[in-house]
C-alpha cells in the first residue's frame, strides 16, 4: 500500500525533473491575460524548440510573480505600471531601461512592449454621467452621493484607489466587488462607478463613459513580457519568435479580442490562433454559441476529468495511508488521542485558499504538488476520526474476547478490530472522497487543473455557462463516487455486520 502511494508521488514529481526542456507560460486570472498568455504560448511553440505549457489563470499578480521567481513559470504577460508599483513597490515609474536595472538583481527581465497601454480607468453609465455632468474623475468630488464598486485588487494596490483618492481628494467609501459582477451592478444602477481597464471588452456593450484622468494619476500600463533573465539564453529560437510580437497588438485589437472571449464565448486558443494567423481582424467561428452540453463535453473534458480524478484519488490514497494508522493510534494510545484529533481538526478549519497560498510560499512551487498536499490534509480528518470512533466503539466484551483468545495485537487489529470498524472507516473515506471532489475545484486557482479550470475561467469571463460546465461534472463526479462507495460497502463490509443492522 505504502509502496504504491510512493510510486504515485514519484510519477507526479518525475515530470519536474525534466523541467529544462519545458517553457512554462503563465497568465493571470482575467480574460486579457488568458488571451495574451495563449498568444505567447502559441508563438513560442511555433518556434519548435521547447515543449510549451500554458499554465492558465494561475492567480493574481502576487502568485504569478512568486511562480516566476521560483521558476514554476518562465514568462507571463504583465503591465509596466504593475511591475513598478506593485512588484517593485516604487512610488514612481521610469522607462524600460530603468525597469530592467531594477529587475536584474532578481534574475528577471522585462521587454517586448506589445503595443497597447491597458491602464486603469473609472467608468460610469453614459446616461448617468451626462445627467450628473461628470466627464472627468475630478468632477466626482462634487457628487458625494455616488456609489463606487471597485475590485479588491484595485482597492488595495498602491497605484489604484489609494493614489486616486488622495490626488483628487475623493470623499467616497467604495464597495469591494468582484470585477465580473460589477458590470451587472452598474447596469442595474446598484452602483454608479466601477474600475475598468482601457481595453475592456464591455465598454461598448454597456454604453460606458470612461472618466478623464486629467491629472494623469494613472501611470501607463504598457503590456509587455516579464520573464526569467535566462529565458533568451535557454530558448533562443522561442525568444526570437516572441520578440517579433513587439508593437503587434493595438488597444483596439486587444479590446476586440477581449470582447470575442467575453461576449461571443470563443476559446482563448482560437482567438490567439486567429490573431497569429492573420495579424488582423479575427474570423468568427462556430465555437461562439455552444450549448451547455457541448461545453461540458468540450475537447478538454477528458483531460480535466483525468486531472480531477488524479487530484482526488492520490490525495485520498495518501490520506488513507496516514489517516487509518493515526486513527488506530488515537484509539489505542490514550496519550496521543487528543493531540492527533486536535491537529487534524484544526487543519480542517484552515480556509483552502489560505492553505494553498501558504503551501505555495513554503514549497516555492505552484500546480499539482501544493494542491495534492492541501487535499491530502483536508481528507485526513474524516478518515482519522472515523477510524478512531469505529475502533473505540467496539464492545468491550468483544475486545476482551479477542484478547483472551491469545491473539497478538496486530492479529487482533487485522482479524477483529478493522473488520468491526470497517463500516465507520469506509464512511470516513467516502466523506473525504466527496469533500475532495469539491475542494479539488479550488486547485485550479494554483494551476493544478481539473474541472476547477472552467470555474476559474467562468469567473474571469463572468460567464455562467462556463462555470456550470465545470461545476456540473464536479457535482456529477461527487454523486458517482458516493454511489461507487455504496457498492464498495456491500462488498467490503463483512456480511455479519450488515445482517446485524438489518435485523
Amino acid at each position, binding site marked *: 500500500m505504502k509502496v504504491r502511494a510512493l510510486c504515485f508521488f514519484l510519477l507526479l514529481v518525475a515530470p519536474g525533473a525534466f523541467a529544462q526542456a519545458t517553457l512554462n507560460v503563465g497568465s493571470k486570472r482575467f480574460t486579457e491575460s488568458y488571451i495574451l498568455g495563449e498568444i505567447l504560448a502559441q508563438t513560442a511553440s511555433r518556434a519548435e524548440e521547447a515543449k510549451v505549457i500554458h499554465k492558465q489563470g494561475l492567480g493574481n499578480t502576487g502568485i504569478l510573480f512568486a511562480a516566476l521567481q521560483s521558476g514554476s513559470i518562465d514568462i507571463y504577460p504583465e503591465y509596466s505600471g504593475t511591475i513598478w508599483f506593485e512588484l517593485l513597490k516604487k512610488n514612481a515609474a521610469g522607462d524600460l531601461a530603468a525597469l530592467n536595472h531594477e529587475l536584474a538583481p532578481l534574475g528577471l527581465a522585462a521587454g517586448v512592449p506589445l503595443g497597447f497601454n491597458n491602464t486603469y480607468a473609472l467608468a460610469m453609465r453614459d446616461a448617468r454621467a451626462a445627467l450628473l455632468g461628470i466627464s472627468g474623475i475630478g468632477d466626482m468630488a462634487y457628487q458625494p452621493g455616488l456609489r463606487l464598486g471597485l475590485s479588491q485588487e484595485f482597492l488595495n494596490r498602491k497605484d489604484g484607489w489609494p493614489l486616486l483618492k488622495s490626488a483628487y481628494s475623493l470623499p467616497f467609501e467604495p464597495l469591494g466587488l468582484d470585477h465580473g459582477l460589477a458590470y451587472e451592478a452598474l447596469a442595474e444602477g446598484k452602483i454608479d462607478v466601477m474600475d475598468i481597464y482601457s481595453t475592456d471588452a464591455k465598454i461598448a456593450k454597456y454604453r460606458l463613459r470612461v472618466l478623464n484622468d486629467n491629472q494623469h494619476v494613472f501611470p501607463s500600463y504598457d503590456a509587455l513580457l516579464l520573464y526569467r533573465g535566462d529565458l533568451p539564453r535557454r530558448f533562443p529560437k522561442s525568444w526570437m519568435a516572441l520578440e517579433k510580437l513587439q508593437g503587434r497588438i493595438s488597444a483596439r485589437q486587444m479590446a476586440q479580442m477581449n470582447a470575442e472571449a467575453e461576449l461571443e464565448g470563443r476559446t482563448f486558443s482560437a482567438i490567439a490562433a486567429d490573431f497569429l494567423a492573420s495579424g488582423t481582424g479575427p474570423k468568427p467561428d462556430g465555437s461562439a454559441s455552444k450549448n451547455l452540453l457541448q461545453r461540458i463535453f468540450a475537447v478538454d473534458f477528458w483531460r480535466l476529468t483525468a486531472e480531477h480524478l488524479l487530484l482526488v484519488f492520490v490525495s485520498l490514497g495518501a490520506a488513507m495511508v496516514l489517516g487509518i494508522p493515526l486513527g488506530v493510534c488515537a484509539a489505542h494510545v490514550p496519550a496521543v488521542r487528543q493531540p492527533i484529533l486536535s491537529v487534524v481538526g484544526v487543519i480542517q478549519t484552515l480556509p483552502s485558499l489560505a492553505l494553498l497560498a501558504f503551501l505555495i510560499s513554503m514549497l516555492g512551487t505552484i500546480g499539482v504538488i501544493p494542491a495534492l498536499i492541501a487535499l491530502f490534509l483536508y481528507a485526513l480528518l474524516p478518515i482519522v476520526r472515523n477510524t478512531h470512533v469505529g475502533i473505540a466503539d467496539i464492545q468491550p466484551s468483544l475486545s*476482551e*474476547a479477542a*484478547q*483472551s483468545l491469545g491473539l497478538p495485537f496486530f492479529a487482533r487489529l487485522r482479524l477483529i478490530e478493522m473488520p468491526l470498524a*470497517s463500516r465507520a472507516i469506509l464512511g470516513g473515506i467516502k466523506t473525504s472522497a466527496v469533500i475532495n471532489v469539491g475542494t479539488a475545484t479550488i486547485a485550479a486557482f494554483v494551476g493544478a487543473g481539473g474541472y476547477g479550470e472552467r470555474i476559474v475561467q467562468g469567473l474571469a469571463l463572468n460567464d455562467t455557462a462556463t462555470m456550470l460546465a465545470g461545476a456540473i461534472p464536479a457535482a456529477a463526479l461527487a454523486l458517482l463516487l458516493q454511489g461507487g462507495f455504496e457498492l464498495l460497502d456491500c462488498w467490503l463490509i463483512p*456480511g*455479519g*455486520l450488515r*445482517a*446485524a443492522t438489518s435485523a
Partner: protein
Amino acid sequence: MITLENVSKSYGKQLVLAPTSLQFERGKVCALIGPSGCGKSTLLRLMLGLIEPDTGRVIFGGEPLTADNVQHVRHSIGYVIQDGGLFPHLTARENVVLLARFLKRNPSWIEQRVNDLSELVRLPRNALSHYPGELSGGQRQRIGLMRALMLDPQVLLLDEPLGALDPIVRGELQRELKGIFTHLGKTVILVTHDMNEAAYLALDIVLLREGRVVQRGTLNDLLHHPAEPYVTQFIQSQRPMTAELL
C-alpha cells in the same frame, strides 16, 4: 493447575479484590459465587492476564504469568463469557476456527475437530454457516463453548455462561455442561451468581463478598458449617420464591 498468591486489585480507591490466595486443582470443577461486584469476574480476568494484579502473582502450571508467556497461557485456556462473546462479522464456524487458523493448524484436523465439538455441544450442523446475529442465545452459547474448546485447552474459564438465557434453555444447557465437564475431565472454573447452578455443576464452591473469600467448601459445608452468618443469608436469599408461596 492455577494458583493465586496473595493477589489484589483496586481501581483508584475502589478495592475490587483484597489480597487473596486460591488454588485450583487439575481436573476439578470449581464455582466462584457471590453477588455482583464481589470480585469473581476480576479473578478470572487476573488468571487470563487481561488485568494485572496490584500485589501477588498468578501461577499457571507451575510458571508465574508474565507478559512473555501470557499469549501462550491463553492458548491453554478456554474462556466463555455471557452470550458467547462471538464476533458478529464472522460466521459461527469462522468464530470457532479463528485461533486454530491463525496458529496454522492442519485444515483437516480443524475440520475433524469442528465436527467432534459440534456433536459434543449438540449444535445443528447448519447453524455453523450462520452469523451470530442470526442464531438463538442458546446456540450462540454452544458456539462460544466450541470456540473455547477448539484447541483442547487444559483449563476452561466460564464467566456467567448461561446468564443471558431463558430458564428452560438454561436448565437444558446446565445438564449438558455437567455432562461435558464430566466427559472431558478438564480443570473448570465457573463464575455464577446462582447457588443452584454452582452446586449442580461443582463440588467445590468459593463464596465471595466485597472482594474477599468468605468461605470455600462443598454445598454441605456451606449449609451446615457456615463460616459467617452471611453464608446462610446468601443461600437463603436464593431460595425460590415459589417455595414460600406453596
